[in-house]
């Protein structure tokens, strides 16, 4: 990447990069949101500018803006035509128009900056004038933002979403059985499921909260209730194997990468023994040695077994059972056929054939593991876990009679953490009262404690993140506990830990340095993986991988193990960027990734053996760089049975370039992709589609980006042909730059770093605030991204988000007149 020029990125219009001849103008772009605007006379408040300043701006407007839009835009957007309902003639009066109609002018700015307007079939505007226009507008926006009172937006009270609930009860009580799995799914808004506005509370959910509160409290205090053994049968996807394929000479001796292995994730309710029974299907060649299978837990071989086929080679229904002790929680269980070619007749060509003379017409790959039955628990571990005891009592559990003072101490400490703020004496009284009442009724202290905990867990103080609204007028700084809570749910999707809570209690979060110390500590904590799962999973969309459908018969390499490995790759990659505090631009163009043997095979990268994920340098012949070439992203942006340059192009525009296409106009039929690869190449089909000018306005931006990734099929594997047509991976950016293939696409994308910087700033700020961003937040987004030009490490991005007024301040509630839907 070329070195960054500090201070120039923020507002450099894309046009400058398109038209190198304009570079001499870039000096005028030193302005940023916080520095003085370029025009000295414009520092007065926007509302009532002194007349001299108004006059100066009107002159600028009249000299620069009005002629530009008259010449370049009025063909379609004058008062008579008003294409797309945009009447620029009405906006062309004077500079105050940019104040009054800010949103429309922001739109104009975006369209010009991204080269989307004027449309391709129109003459290009003069580059110098275009640059002057976008610069003038950017300067005017900054002037308005700098002089207006800070608009930090109102963050709605937020209910904990499912993963926040799970993490919070884990960190509060040491209970980690994911009660949120039983809750109805959270709706998402603006791309994330932590959006306060859409996180509603239905009676169904309240019922489940009540239910979960009891289960969580009793598990913490008494341990998991003894369970009767029961069984669950996993029936993962299996495929009809292509038996015509030649026997592999170099094969994975774990068998895990082979399509006939079985991989499942199973959540075990309690620590106990479980029977794991693998059930087999298919045929073995007669005369082969017994089938040698392996049972793997979390990537480690824990058991080997042997199955002998029936006389005719049939394996259907044969099973292998093994009892194993497992901790509570989710485990990856796999059953593979070890050394599948070993012991087969010589005709199969494996490395260690047996000496049998017989030869039958069955291929070894016709045998596979079809089901896994999990039965248990047996010999369940009982009693509360050490983690729960520590969280509940901060030491040894009470023995004998518990004094009222000790009861108050225990519930007060719990409520302090559950409500994430100091508790009042009245609150402690009420909670201690529940314990006393249960004891009066003849039950134990522990029963009483359970009820008090249940009470806390259904409290609005626990379920909602409440922040007090300031009086109408100016925003106020968050109090230390509100700030600590915003930080912990942003970075951990969980409650503040003891150290953060203590810092808030002691008023030690008042300086930026103190906040920075906490943020850096929190990013290095394992809980920061929540940022990978929840932020990354929704931004890069790999969370959708599990429910994404793939036509497996057409893509036999896409096994459950492949899918799990794809997701792991992106997770490990993101985790590494956080842990090693790498450049955020690694997301765009990293020349490394994280692979296990399965995925390395998939990518055609030699030398990676085993199930462990490790950092691997991407050689040029892998054609991969950055997240857009990771198989997880390539898969979720495809259909089940084919790629879609449209979806992939849209994905890049939305998630890398920060230029999401508008929704399609009414009653335009979607692109017909059914015939692709059948009669015409994808490209011809899409080009025919773009002949329609209505379609072309957006598809001319999306499709050509997606073409650059056409060498990756619908599950992210490399290909040279689509059907009978050779892949043509040439494409172009909205502004006209062209490229061929994924690596050139990535190089093109990274030329203008400010696009991606603004994109990730936009996404992360949306996630951190739990609300959709508005035009009023654009200054903050530009400011965050500008800081990345001096220091592009991930921690700087997070700190820049944390330091925005949007994150640090609480605005008064919008007036009741605002269009807020009323409850029924």
């Amino acid at each position, binding site marked *: 990447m070329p070195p960054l020029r500090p201070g120039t990125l923020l507002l450099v219009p894309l046009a400058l990069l398109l038209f190198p001849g304009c570079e001499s103008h870039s000096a005028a772009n030193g302005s940023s949101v916080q520095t003085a605007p370029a025009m000295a006379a414009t520092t007065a408040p926007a509302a009532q500018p002194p007349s001299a300043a108004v006059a100066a701006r009107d002159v600028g407007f009249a000299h620069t803006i009005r002629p530009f839009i008259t010449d370049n835009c009025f063909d379609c957007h004058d008062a008579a035509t008003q294409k797309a309902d945009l009447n620029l003639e009405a906006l062309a009066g004077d500079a105050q128009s940019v104040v009054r109609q800010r949103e429309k002018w922001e739109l104009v700015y975006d369209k010009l900056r991204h080269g989307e307007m004027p449309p391709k079939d129109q003459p290009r505007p003069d580059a110098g004038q275009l640059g002057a226009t976008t610069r003038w507008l950017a300067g005017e926006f900054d002037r308005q933002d700098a002089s207006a009172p800070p608009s930090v937006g109102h963050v709605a*009270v937020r209910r904990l979403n499912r993963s926040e609930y799970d993490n919070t009860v884990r960190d509060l009580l040491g209970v980690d059985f994911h009660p949120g799995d039983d809750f109805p799914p959270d709706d998402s808004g603006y791309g994330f499921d932590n959006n306060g506005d859409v996180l509603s509370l239905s009676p169904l959910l309240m019922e489940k909260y009540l239910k979960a509160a009891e289960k969580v409290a009793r598990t913490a205090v008494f341990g998991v209730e003894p369970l009767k053994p029961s069984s669950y049968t996993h029936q993962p996807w299996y495929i009809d194997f292509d038996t015509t394929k030649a026997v592999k000479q170099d094969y994975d001796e774990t068998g895990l990468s082979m399509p006939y292995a079985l991989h499942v994730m199973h959540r075990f309710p309690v620590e106990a023994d479980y029977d794991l029974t693998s059930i087999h299907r298919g045929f073995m060649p007669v005369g082969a040695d017994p089938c040698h299978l392996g049972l793997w837990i979390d990537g480690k071989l824990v058991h080997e077994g042997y199955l002998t086929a029936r006389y005719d080679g049939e394996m259907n229904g044969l099973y292998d059972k093994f009892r194993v002790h497992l901790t509570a929680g989710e485990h990856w269980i796999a059953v593979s056929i070890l050394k599948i070619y070993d012991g087969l007749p010589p005709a199969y060509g494996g490395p260690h054939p047996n000496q049998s003379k017989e030869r039958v017409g069955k291929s070894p790959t016709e045998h596979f593991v079809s089901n896994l039955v999990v039965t248990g628990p047996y010999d369940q571990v009982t009693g509360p876990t050490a983690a729960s005891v520590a969280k509940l009592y901060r030491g040894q559990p009470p023995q004998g009679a518990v004094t009222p003072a000790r009861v108050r101490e225990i519930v007060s400490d719990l409520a302090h953490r559950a409500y994430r703020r100091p508790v009042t004496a009245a609150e402690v009284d009420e909670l201690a009262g529940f314990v006393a009442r249960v004891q009066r009724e003849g039950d134990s202290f522990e029963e009483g404690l359970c*009820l008090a905990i249940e009470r806390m867990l259904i409290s609005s103080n626990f379920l*909602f993140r409440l922040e007090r609204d300031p009086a109408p007028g100016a925003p106020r700084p968050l109090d230390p506990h509100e700030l600590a809570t915003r930080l912990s749910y942003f970075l951990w999707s969980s409650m503040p830990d003891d150290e953060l809570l203590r810092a808030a209690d002691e008023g030690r979060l008042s300086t930026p340095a103190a906040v920075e110390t906490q943020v850096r500590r929190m990013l290095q904590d394992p809980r920061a993986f929540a940022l990978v799962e929840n932020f990354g999973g929704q931004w890069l969309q790999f969370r959708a991988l599990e429910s994404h459908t793939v036509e497996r018969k057409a893509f036999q390499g896409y096994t459950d193990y492949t899918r799990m490995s794809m997701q792991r790759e992106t997770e490990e990659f993101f985790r590494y960027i956080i842990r090693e505090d790498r450049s955020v631009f690694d997301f765009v163009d990293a020349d490394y990734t994280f692979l296990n043997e399965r995925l390395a095979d998939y990518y055609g990268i030699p030398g990676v053996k085993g199930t462990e994920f490790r950092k691997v340098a991407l050689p040029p012949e892998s054609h991969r760089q950055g997240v857009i070439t990771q198989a997880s992203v390539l898969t979720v942006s495809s259909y*089940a*049975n084919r790629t879609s340059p449209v979806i992939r192009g849209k994905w890049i525009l939305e998630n890398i370039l920060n230029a999401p296409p508008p929704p*399609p106009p009414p009653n335009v039929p979607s692109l017909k992709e*059914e015939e692709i690869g059948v009669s015409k190449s994808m490209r011809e089909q899409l080009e025919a589609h773009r002949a329609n000018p209505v379609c072309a306005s957006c598809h001319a931006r999306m499709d050509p980006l997606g073409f650059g990734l056409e060498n990756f099929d619908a599950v992210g594997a490399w290909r040279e042909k689509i059907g009978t047509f050779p892949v043509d991976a040439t494409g172009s950016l909205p502004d006209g730059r062209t490229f061929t293939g994924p690596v050139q696409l990535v190089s093109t994308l990274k030329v203008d770093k400010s696009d991606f910087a603004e994109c990730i700033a936009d996404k992360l700020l949306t996630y951190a605030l739990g609300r959709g961003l508005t035009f009023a937040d654009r200054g903050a987004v530009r400011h965050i991204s500008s800081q990345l030009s001096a220091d592009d490490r991930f921690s700087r991005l997070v700190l820049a988000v944390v330091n925005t007024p949007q994150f640090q301040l609480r605005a008064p509630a919008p007036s009741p007149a605002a269009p807020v839907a009323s409850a029924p």
Partner: protein
Amino acid sequence: MILTGKHLSRRHFLRGVGTVIALPVLDSMIPAGFGQVAKAATAAAKAPTRLSFVYVPNGIVMNNWTPAAEGADFVLPSILQLLAPYRSQATVISGLINHQANALGDGGGDHARAGASFLTGSHPKKTGGSDIHAGISADQVAAQQIGGATRLPSLEIGLDDNRVVGHCDSGYSCAYTNSISWRGPATPLPPESNPRLLFERLFGDFDPSVSAETRARRANDRKSILDSAREEAGRLARDVGAADRRKLDEYLTTVREIEQRIELAEKSPAPADPGIDKPSGIPSDFGEHARLLYDLQALAFQADLTRIATMVIGREGSVRTYEEIGVPDPHHPLSHHRGRAEALEKLTKINTYHMQLFAHFLERLRTMKEGDGTLLDRSMVLYGCGISDSDRHIHENLPVVVAGGGNGTFAGNRHVRVKENTPVTNLYLSLLDRMGVRADVLGDSTGKLEI
């Protein structure tokens, strides 16, 4: 584990653990006599009418749906042929429109609008998040008026995994495509997709080892913590701004509703033994999943746990593939068929498959006796979609069929063509009327449909 045949097999489901922990939860909502076989004590009273809405996504191949003739003497086209056994209790209604699903100046997003407007008759506000706004849905109008008579005012069921990411359709929040049932303009009700969780909701998690006394005490404990949590939130609500108060009001309303349910359960007669074991989770097979959810809905009707239900077979814009019936193509792109014979044939297969599963539901209802009739006699089950031809997102001439006798109020064996531009909401008013629910207007309705 497919439920087939004419009766529900008992103890048929896998006794799975999976993620289950069998704690006796919310047994305070289980009346004291539950667990012993207790026949519904409704024989004396007049049997109630049940109302169910079943939604299928992405339109229907209308050529294979709409009968040519009107009146009683019509031939069932291919998709509807599976309804033949229930013909005497089924009415095909053609010509209804769902005008609020049209763009009306909002651009793309027909699928999101079709789902959100189908039962609400309201034009959903185009937004990706804050201020989602549609309208109250027909089922919820009924739930608010007569839902108090049963333990659950209504049931919302759906087959989709709702862990969807991002916007769902052209700038519309996923809330619009996930839910067809809306308690109020800003409150979509998320459907339950997990049969195990639905079962627990209906039948609790009865544990015979817990004594009635203990259970009563737990109900008391629950009421006391709910009561105290409600008071606390009430105090908080006084100190917050309007937007936050809305959230706290939502909390207060739901807490009150749970309290009422607990009280109701204490007074109610025991429901019938469900007769099936708790399902272990979501079956991997689509058809099995659908049949199981239909079965549970039928059981809920039979035990009179609720009288109102909605079921979303697929969310609008669904890209589910149906390899099991030879359609590996994702449904939504396929539905933009451009008139190609092959695509239409595949879509017809999907439409027919959905209808086959619906017929299973009708069969269940028909085999469940109640008093001198069957549950199907007592029910009105509407099956339809907010789009007719998905290729061009047509929201006119919707595919709609109503099955069941509506407690003697709804004649079958008819193909009715309504007057042009009749909103589908007019039909709902007519159905609600038969439920004894008073509603003069619903969304864009223009009057009760005489049918």
